[in-house]
């Protein structure tokens, strides 16, 4: 789960990291009030789950009240990477001397939290990792020991020769690791970490993702979820414990298992169609979940055909069949439904479907070809 800059900053502050003050505004009037409270030049920053906010015009310096109003009005409502800006962060402008990058994420290869720091701040770390890997210092934290003091210094020393700056930064790095572990994060980036001309080190931008599997431990972080930042159908899917990602095609897909769901989407494309979504009904599905899945798929007006691809393992064919029949009774489903159903309780499932007037394919290729034929004919 991605959270906003202002939320990430709250977490960093709570862990002792120096972060300049800032307040969120949803109107230009609010933004002006906040700016007047801080006095001096402020930065107005779009709060959306997307990189490249600066390039998109979502981050502006404002020296006067008039400028604050102007920028706030422009940025609120702006669309960045398909997301509408509904909140802006207003924060005092800092007297920046240097900018660095400090990030920590779960690294698959080393199976542990891994820090990356670079004296080239304000950069795209992936970009630098490709073009100039020597500019990055990397450290894997052994989960048995946690981040050790000398390791924090080893990272900090690569950013600053100045002992005072390195000391402040080593402390920030330790606090960052504490924030990472205590909030169940999968990634935190401070970019840039700045030094001011007066010799202070501060975090002036932050990006953070929480491991969804940790959320049960952090009810306070669940509150951070920005429902306005995702399609309503995805919210509904999450509440129904389904994995759903909306795409731009017209073949609605309902599959059990993430790998098979991706392979199904790929096969739709292979046969000349475009998938409308990724949807995994999960392992231990019950009829109610299938009903929810159909509600979600049919809420997408682009969907012209609904394709079920079920290979029963834990999932039982009769449960899915019952769910399909139940859904057709409860909701008015316009697009035709094509079904592949095999595996556990296949026979019982096919009988239930036949009774309700559905026929089912036994191969994945057949059902996908059929679905694509329908949309191409439609």
């Amino acid at each position, binding site marked *: 789960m991605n959270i906003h800059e202002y939320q990430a900053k709250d977490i960093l502050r709570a862990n002792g990291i120096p972060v300049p003050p800032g307040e969120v505004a949803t109107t230009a009037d609010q933004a002006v009030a906040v700016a007047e409270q801080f006095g001096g030049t402020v930065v107005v920053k779009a709060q959306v789950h997307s990189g490249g906010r600066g390039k998109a015009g979502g981050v502006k310096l404002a020296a006067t009240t008039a400028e604050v109003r102007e920028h706030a009005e422009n940025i609120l409502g702006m669309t960045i990477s398909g997301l509408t800006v509904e909140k802006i962060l207003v924060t005092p402008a800092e007297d920046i001397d240097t900018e660095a990058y400090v990030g920590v994420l779960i690294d*698959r290869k080393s199976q542990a939290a891994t820090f990356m720091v670079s004296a080239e701040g304000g950069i795209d770390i992936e970009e630098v990792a490709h073009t100039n890997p020597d500019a990055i210092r990397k450290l894997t934290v052994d989960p048995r020991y946690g981040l050790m003091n000398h390791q924090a210094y080893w990272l900090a020393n690569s950013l600053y020769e100045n002992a005072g700056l390195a000391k402040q930064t080593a402390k920030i790095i330790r606090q960052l690791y504490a924030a990472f572990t205590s909030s169940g994060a999968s990634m935190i980036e401070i970019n840039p970490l700045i030094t001011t001309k007066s010799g202070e080190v501060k975090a002036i931008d932050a990006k953070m993702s929480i491991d969804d599997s940790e959320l049960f431990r952090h009810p306070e972080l669940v509150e951070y979820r920005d429902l306005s930042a995702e399609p309503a159908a995805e919210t509904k899917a999450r509440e129904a414990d389904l994995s759903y990602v909306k795409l731009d095609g017209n073949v609605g897909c309902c599959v059990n298992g993430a*790998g098979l769901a991706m392979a199904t989407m790929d096969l*739709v494309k292979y046969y000349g169609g475009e998938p409308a979504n990724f949807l*995994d009904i999960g392992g231990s599905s019950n009829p109610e979940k299938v009903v929810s899945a159909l509600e979600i798929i049919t809420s997408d007006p682009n969907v012209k055909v609904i394709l079920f691809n079920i290979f029963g393992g834990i999932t039982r064919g009769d449960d899915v069949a019952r769910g399909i029949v139940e859904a057709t009774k409860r909701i008015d489903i316009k697009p035709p439904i094509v079904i592949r159903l095999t595996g556990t309780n296949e026979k019982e499932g096919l009988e239930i479907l036949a009774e309700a007037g559905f026929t089912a394919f036994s191969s994945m290729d057949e059902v996908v070809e059929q679905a694509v034929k329908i949309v191409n004919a439609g």
Partner: protein
Amino acid sequence: MAIFVDEATRLVVQGITGRDGSFHTLQMMEYGTAVVAGVTPGKGGQTFEGLEGVGVPIFNSMDEAVAETGANASAVYVPPAFAAGAVEEAADAGVSLVVAITEGVPVQDMARAHAFARDRGARVLGPNCPGVISPGKAKVGIIPGNIVTPGPVGVISRSGTLTYEAVIHLTNAGIGQTTCVGIGGDPLIGTNFVDALEAFADDADTEAIVMIGEIGGTDEQEAAQWVSDHLEIPVVGFIAGQTAPPGRRMGHAGAIISGASGTAEEKMKAFEDNGISVAKRPADIAGLIQGVLSA
């Protein structure tokens, strides 16, 4: 022969009295796996009713289960909040294989559990994996027993049902399997492609390997390199997620394209660059395997 599980496997089911644990215990017993014990804290002393009147003793802890039954493997069906702890408990009790089925285990929990299992010399499969089946010998996990058949092909996959899809094509084409391994869809898994490949490389009966990857991470790329550097038997590959958008998690916690990294395209290229035939559709896997086996 086979890898990871076979007739010598003596299994403890952790969370045997739970919904999934009890269901799959019966399935595993039906397949012929020697389920020698179950663990559910607080239910020690009770008996799990297995197939045809065969009772499985339940213990409060793994150490008792192992001490009393000589178990050498475990399957973890406990809820996410306790799953990493269950892996640690199993590794501490001395089993050599821990198959973690549970999905949604906190990743930082698993970082510690994986480190601990390494220290204890226990192999972890998963978490968020369908487990492992050696046709005709034993299964640990949830892979349906009726889709596999003994034979010369090793199967490794990050996915559950997609594996079934691939395996049923093999079985229908008369091509059996030595072992089918689901390594799991999480970012941090105990046994990755290279680990499983190494095991198959040591298995004299495995004559070809099917490797089913998906978007996210670089495990497939490293495996491709390893195949090219070390493996003497042919490999057929498939990658799911060619149509997945970047930055979105596709069901599996590990199935996400970060920036330009972890795409299906680069994985397929890595396969091809390293002499691995790439199937365009799951249905093509069997044909490609047939080709390499008869070559």
